């Protein structure tokens, strides 16, 4: 871009003149989020006591459940946000506010857990204490404030503060602060199942990703080498994407049972019509599109001039592929890998419908029973794994891309 400096300056001035400044918008957002969090604390249902795990309970506001702590928390929130409202004072101040906000959030979690345990005293054992809409709204608002505060703070510092928070939560959990909450009751009743589901979910999504990689790397290579082949592969893999996953899984169950009836020797290989086999094949089938595309576009990412230079230096095609195309195309490939990994975790959930286990089994059992706590117990780990995989591979993507820029 070669523009006259005057033009740039005038554009900037014209742009700023009639519009709000970015600071004002960011401040407005902060004010709105703070107001929402305070409203959640004083005006919405915080905890509800239900006669059993299926019936809805009577919602109580935080002011009734936490007493003076609710007001104190609202005041603390106001002070923390207010301290950074007028002026943005550098990284240290931001980091301090981030830590204080996180501390407030964790404090509220622990207080809510203790309050839940206390409010169950004297109730029959089937009674459950569930967190309500106000609690979730407050958590959402504070997480957004945290995300906003984390801008401009070094990622390592953010990670260290978050780690301290996680340790605090783990200690609180050990000392039994959350035992009264219905979701913990649900977890205690199924802790073995939960652990088995975690192992199965991770094993299934990782194996599906590995299977898909084994197929996609040669496929992507072929698609890169032969443009005609590429169109066919693309059409086929895109076609798979529009078949609903639930249906593909179901059809695989039917096809496998036909195949096993026809060739019973396949059973000797440990294949079965329901369970992990169809889930693995089904999930891997969906992952092939992002992976194959990642490989093919990654290989094509290198500038033709660079390839020419390498050839001019006397490099063979094989060496060019390994030493030029691979490093230059790695960010594109990792981006495809990220999409595939996140999809793998999500799609494995549906394996629960065909007896493959994993967290999907908990979620669908919860839906069938209309038991919100069981649904949340199965869903939260899936969300956490998907977001963590996304963040981790995004960071890796930036890392492999950095030497180029």
């Amino acid at each position, binding site marked *: *871009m070669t*523009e006259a400096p005057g033009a740039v300056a005038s*554009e900037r001035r*014209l*742009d*700023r003149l009639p*519009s*709000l*400044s*970015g600071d*004002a*918008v*960011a401040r407005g*957002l902060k004010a709105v989020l703070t107001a929402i969090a305070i409203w959640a604390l004083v005006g919405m249902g915080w905890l509800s006591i239900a006669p059993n795990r299926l019936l809805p309970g009577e919602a109580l506001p935080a002011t009734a459940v936490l007493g003076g702590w609710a007001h104190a928390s609202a005041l603390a929130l106001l002070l923390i946000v207010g301290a950074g409202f007028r002026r943005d004072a550098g990284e240290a101040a931001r980091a301090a506010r981030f830590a204080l906000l996180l501390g407030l959030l964790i404090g509220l979690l622990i207080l809510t857990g203790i309050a839940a345990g206390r409010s169950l005293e004297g109730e029959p054992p089937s009674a459950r204490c569930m967190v309500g*809409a106000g609690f979730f709204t407050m958590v959402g608002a504070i997480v*957004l404030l945290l*995300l*906003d505060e984390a*801008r401009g703070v070094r990622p390592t510092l953010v990670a260290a503060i978050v780690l301290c928070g996680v340790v605090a939560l783990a200690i609180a959990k050990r000392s039994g602060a959350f035992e009264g909450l219905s979701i913990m009751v649900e977890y205690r009743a199924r802790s073995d199942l939960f652990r088995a589901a975690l192992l199965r979910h991770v094993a299934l999504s990782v194996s599906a990703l590995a299977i898909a990689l084994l197929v996609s790397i040669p496929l992507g290579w072929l698609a890169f080498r032969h443009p005609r082949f590429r169109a066919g592969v693309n059409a086929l893999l895109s*076609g798979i*994407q*529009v*078949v*609903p996953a*639930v*249906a*593909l*899984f*179901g*059809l695989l*169950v*039917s*096809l496998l049972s*036909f195949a096993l*009836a*026809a060739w019973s020797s396949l059973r000797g290989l440990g294949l079965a019509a329901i369970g992990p086999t169809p889930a693995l094949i089904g999930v891997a089938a969906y992952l092939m599109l992002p992976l194959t595309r990642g490989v093919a576009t990654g290989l094509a990412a290198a500038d033709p001039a660079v390839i020419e230079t390498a050839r001019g230096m006397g490099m063979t095609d094989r060496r060019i592929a390994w030493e030029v195309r691979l490093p230059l195309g790695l960010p594109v490939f990792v981006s495809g890998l990220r999409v595939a990994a*996140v999809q793998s*975790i*999500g*799609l494995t*959930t*549906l394996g629960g*419908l*065909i007896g493959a286990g994993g967290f*999907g089994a908990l*979620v*669908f059992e919860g*839906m069938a029973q*209309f038991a919100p706590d069981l*649904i*949340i117990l*199965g*869903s939260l780990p*899936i*969300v956490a794994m*998907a*977001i963590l*995989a*996304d963040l981790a591979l*995004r960071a890796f993507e930036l890392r492999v891309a950095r030497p180029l820029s």
Partner: protein
Amino acid sequence: MKQLHYGLAAAAVALALAAVADPDTASRLVEALGGTRKPPVPADRLLDLAARHATLAITSVAVASILGVTLGVFVTRSAGAALRPLVDTLVAALQAIPPIVVVALAFPALGFGSAPTVLALVFYCVMPVLRGTIAGIEAVPGEARQAARAMGFTRWQLIWSIEVPLALPLISEAVRVALVLAVATAAIGALAGAATLGTPIITGLQNQNELHILQGAAATAALAFLAEAAWLLGLCLVERQPVEA
């Protein structure tokens, strides 16, 4: 020209898949593969479900598009630039959450029916539209913007008469991708009681009736290709009209 070819090819695939979903063809196909004879889903029921399925997907994509374009225009303003990282993170997180999990989590709060599915599809489709809008607006040449300002365009005129029209091809491409995704994904709504083409798939899974699964799958895929074909052919029609001087 390419658009016309792709559109016609998608329409042909949609037709072929619709033929597979047809009760008679599907029955014969399952029997040929060694399945037993079972009552198929009647064609009129399938059409009714397809209409509901399409309504659900189109509603969700419309909401996601309005949200995505609005957010995209907002974060490309100087006032919104400060919020861009926050919006990016949030929308990426929404897309990382598997739609089935959104449906399951929204199910106790929103109840039986299509509401949880609409929510899940909106979450899933905002990101592609937002990305397309941002890419489109960022590709608008600075000269075009400066010329518009020099001509005395207001901020809104700049957005609606210059930036959005110039970004439209990329936005339209993103909405097409979102629509196809939404049609294919809407089937999971059946797990929370939304009447979609996923309904025969789920009942088929529960009753081990592979015929119903096949019909639901083929009909959903047909609808997805139909959406693609309609979008591409519609674009051909719109683009053929002469541009006003």
